[in-house]
């Protein structure tokens, strides 16, 4: 749908080849194209600005090599900067020294938390763990049933002592889940929570209370790859409100460029750890910064 950065830069550099250094005018034209490409990929404006500044700096210093044409050279710089922000090597899940390891899921409404809970459960089970899913979304209609179905499909136990649909206290459920997990020797506990807005102070406090009840080893912020400029505002609100240690990008099977990955990683300093790419429980993968960089640039 959108022009690739490669094409944009090729047009900018028409007729330009093998110069010693890029001129200021070249760099100016280049950064304008990069800016547009990033904005069309939904990278948040403040992140675009910082990114452009870094690329400009490197482009100034770069000696245009004989082997690469200027377009390739710029793309290489942009790519390296992107991968730098997206985290280089993928970080692995942190497991507790004394089980159970607790993973808390948080994010906006509809981001893909409950589905992710099922995916994590299946994946963990495949690695020989005995995960427990905890139904701590007692708000959204039939969220508890949804988690039960997902748990059944994954073949794992779901701790769901309250019916939900407005009945029950999610903090109490989370606390009870810990006792249950220890008793039944589950070595990983995945807590599903209700979707909430960054500006909903009351629900954000509830998330913090759930956190304090379970002392998670990982808090995963779940974010939809289609998200636009709001990505930074909301990620910051979750970071302040409940905190998180890693990010999961969902719905990557779509055709969104996924600039949110860059926005969230840059603003919060937290790595994207996993990619969710389908509705099936197996549609789940480690996050690959290099693939994401190419995707953002449309390459």
């Amino acid at each position, binding site marked *: 749908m959108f022009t690739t950065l490669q094409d944009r830069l090729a047009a900018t550099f028409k007729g330009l080849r093998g110069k010693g250094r890029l001129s200021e005018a070249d760099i100016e034209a280049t950064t304008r194209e990069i800016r547009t490409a990033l904005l069309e990929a939904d990278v948040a404006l403040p992140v675009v600005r910082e990114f452009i500044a870094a690329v400009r700096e490197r482009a100034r210093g770069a000696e245009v090599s004989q082997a690469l044409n200027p377009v390739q050279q710029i793309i290489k710089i942009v790519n390296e900067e992107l991968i730098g922000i997206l985290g280089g090597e993928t970080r692995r899940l942190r497991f507790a020294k004394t089980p159970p390891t607790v993973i808390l899921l948080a994010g906006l409404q509809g981001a893909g938390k409950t589905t992710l809970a099922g995916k994590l459960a299946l994946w963990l089970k495949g690695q020989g763990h005995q995960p427990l899913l905890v139904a701590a979304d007692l708000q959204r*209609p039939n969220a508890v049933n949804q988690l039960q*179905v997902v748990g059944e*499909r994954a073949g794992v136990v779901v701790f769901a002592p309250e019916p939900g649909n407005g009945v029950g206290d999610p903090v109490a459920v989370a606390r009870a889940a810990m006792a249950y997990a220890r008793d039944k020797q589950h070595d990983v506990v995945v807590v599903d929570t209700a979707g909430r807005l960054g500006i909903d102070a009351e629900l954000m406090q509830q998330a913090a209370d759930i956190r304090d009840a379970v002392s998670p080893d990982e808090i995963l912020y779940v974010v939809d790859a289609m*998200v636009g400029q709001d990505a930074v505002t909301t990620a910051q*609100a979750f970071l302040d409100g409940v905190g998180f240690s890693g990010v999961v990008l969902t*719905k990557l099977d779509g*055709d*969104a*460029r996924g600039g949110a990955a860059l926005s969230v990683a840059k603003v919060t300093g937290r790595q994207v750890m996993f990619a969710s790419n389908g509705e099936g429980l197996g549609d789940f993968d480690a996050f690959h910064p290099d693939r994401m960089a190419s995707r953002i640039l449309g390459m």
Partner: protein
Amino acid sequence: LSRDSLDEDTWEEVEDTLLTADVGVGPTQELVERLRTRVRVLGTRSPEQVRDLLREELLALVAPELDRTLATTRHPDGRPAVVLVVGVNGTGKTTTVGKLARVLVSEEKDVVLGAADTFRAAAAEQLTTWGERVGVPTVRGPEGADPASVAYDALEQGTQLEADVVLVDTAGRLQNKVGLMDELGKVKRVLERKGPVDEVLLVLDATTGQNGLIQARVFSEVVAVTGIVLTKLDGTAKGGIVVAVQRELGVPVKLVGLGEGPDDLAPFEPAAFVDALVE
């Protein structure tokens, strides 16, 4: 827009306002160009005036004259009005169906819900809970059933019950999934055996960035969208992508979602939307 002279900073602020609201690079540049021309012609001086002009231009793009009413009147032959609700995963379709049913019930209409999302875990249960909440029946099929046949059943039952409106909820699907889009086309065609579908509402999440335009394009091609529902506007996102959607497709935003409760659905108000966007 707080400067007192029209320097480049002012224009940058205008541009930032639009970009950070997800209006998109193309529409933003066009808007700023048009504003610059108008400012030159009018000799406008203050940032305040520029802000007013911006509001004016945005409002024109959002086309306040478009008809935003929903076709929800029973047909003379006794057939209920049919509203088909579509969109990508997790935007708020099921919730919107529930809220819309509430609005229609308050207008004394008889409503039947059709749970044509037979795919997602507990989707039919979720819709049924909404039906119970607002006091309307939900027609559903077994898990994994053909969504088109569930939709058709809902229409048949709605006709038997002499309902005014049948609201059909569908599974979330990404617009690049050809098989799922074909399935949606079939749901609509099967409903059309009884007569035209009255409304096809595309539910767009206000947090969506530039992909929202592609969603609107593809869903329009497949099921001829008649209106947009812009959900989750109660959050910090502005939903600026609908500016491009309306501009390109001419499909009006008809409703906005403002929360998770049954009463959190409101008519789209162009002026209020634009005010929030430039805020």
